[in-house]
């Protein structure tokens, strides 16, 4: 559960767009989509697991005496490497707290650091009614956070990462018409296998592939500095396969079940100046499906962004 909350809070709750003014919006906070040379984002996300769901797709909202909450800070930095290529990184720090009856536990730690590269393959150098602005991106997530099998706390509140190197590729397409904007962010990722000694023996853990498609739209009334947005992001993860190491014959001990969720989100952003913006977002996984074999959360995020213009 904590592993899942980690993924949600560190990756899912910061998808707010800045106001549409001057094209400085971002459906992916680690990418610069405006005419800037550098961008800094600071985010805080508060998450709460409200239900658990098995492969029957029926959520169990559980007892009010139990709670799983998170508080995650994230720093995103991106800088131009050339006119159309940019590089960046994300550093998350998270606090998790679990309460089950009279038992309580909380921990804070570094999450999984992510390095990213982006290429603007469809630049907006002239006006077009239909042609979107497009980016291709790739990212490498480093297992700098503590993984579930490496936990030391009884209720696993010290789990702040997945424990895997994960390679992501995706695209971001953006289009704006006066007061409206739309975006599409398809991405796929692959988490590399690793061997652990922390499960009572040597085992190979293979998470495999995952992917998501983010889609949303926004409205900036009067083409002003305020923007309201709506977004959906269905996600799919291949189940975690646990097997014995190659030396022991690669015997599959457990082929995990597919994990599915769908984020539904709303956000509001305000451009305080041509280089500063602030946004708040709400993400809920209990509203739309399909969802299976995971926990469902609700989270609230606030994000501040500063840009350095070219």
């Amino acid at each position, binding site marked *: 559960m904590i592993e899942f909350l980690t993924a949600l809070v560190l990756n899912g709750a910061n998808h707010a767009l800045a106001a549409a003014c001057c094209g400085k919006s971002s459906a992916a906070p680690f990418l610069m989509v405006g*005419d800037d040379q550098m961008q800094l984002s600071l985010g805080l996300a508060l998450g709460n697991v409200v239900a658990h769901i098995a492969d029957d797709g029926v959520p169990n909202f559980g007892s009010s005496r139990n709670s799983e909450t998170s508080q995650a800070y994230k720093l995103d930095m991106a800088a131009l490497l050339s006119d159309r290529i940019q590089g960046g990184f994300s550093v998350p720090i998270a606090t998790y707290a679990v309460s089950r009856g009279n038992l309580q536990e909380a921990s804070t730690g570094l999450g999984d650091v992510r390095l990213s590269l982006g290429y603007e393959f469809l630049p907006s150098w*002239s006006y077009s009614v239909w042609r979107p602005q497009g980016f291709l991106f790739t990212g490498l997530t480093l297992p700098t956070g503590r993984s579930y099998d490496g936990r030391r706390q009884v209720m696993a509140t010290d789990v702040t990462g997945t424990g895997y190197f994960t390679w992501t590729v995706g695209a971001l397409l953006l289009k704006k018409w006066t007061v409206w904007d739309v975006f599409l962010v398809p991405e796929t990722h692959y988490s590399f296998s690793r061997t652990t000694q922390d499960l009572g023996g040597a085992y190979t853990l293979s998470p495999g592939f995952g992917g998501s498609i983010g889609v949303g739209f926004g409205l900036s009334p009067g083409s002003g500095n305020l923007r309201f947005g709506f977004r959906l992001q269905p996600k799919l993860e291949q189940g975690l396969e646990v097997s014995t190491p190659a030396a022991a014959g690669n015997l599959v001990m457990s082929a995990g079940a597919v994990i599915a969720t769908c984020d539904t989100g709303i956000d509001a952003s305000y451009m305080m100046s041509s280089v500063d913006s602030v946004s708040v977002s709400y993400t809920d996984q209990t509203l739309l499906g399909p969802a299976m074999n995971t926990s469902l959360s609700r989270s609230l995020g606030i994000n501040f962004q500063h840009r350095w*213009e070219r």
Partner: protein
Amino acid sequence: MCQMGFCFSELKQIEGLDLIGGSSVRVEFKKARLGTVVMFLSSRCPCSASHQSTLDQLSKEFGPRGFRFVGIHSNADEEVEAAREHFKKSGLAFPVIQDKKSGIADALGAFKTPHVFVLASNGEVLFQGGVDNSHVANAANKHYLQEALAMIVDGKKPSQKEVRVLGCEIRR
């Protein structure tokens, strides 16, 4: 319209009310010996204002060498009267034509202010994009428009036909 790697404007001339002079102006591309420099400007955008003096200097430097300079004001969200006042105060050496319903901006594909186009007498787009590589003129270290005009004066094609345009989007 682009054919065999060359892009042509469907416009052959630009005609409209000059916000500075107050009279109707017609700019025919065929009458400029080396080309017509069409500059989309705003009365509100700080990026546009920052480049006005650069464009004014370029018009004084390259105007006598065979180029015709003309400014265009296309922003639908800017009051014409306020724009007239802004450009009159600016003391620009070229006319700034009010673009009704952004027709000129649509014909050329102008995206932001300042966005510049250098058009040959036959309508061929020799260069289009930003004036330079910065939002703020005095922070730029690549001066695209100046380099393009200098190359045309030397009888060459600009080495970059299209560059990124920085500034505020034109509201249509």
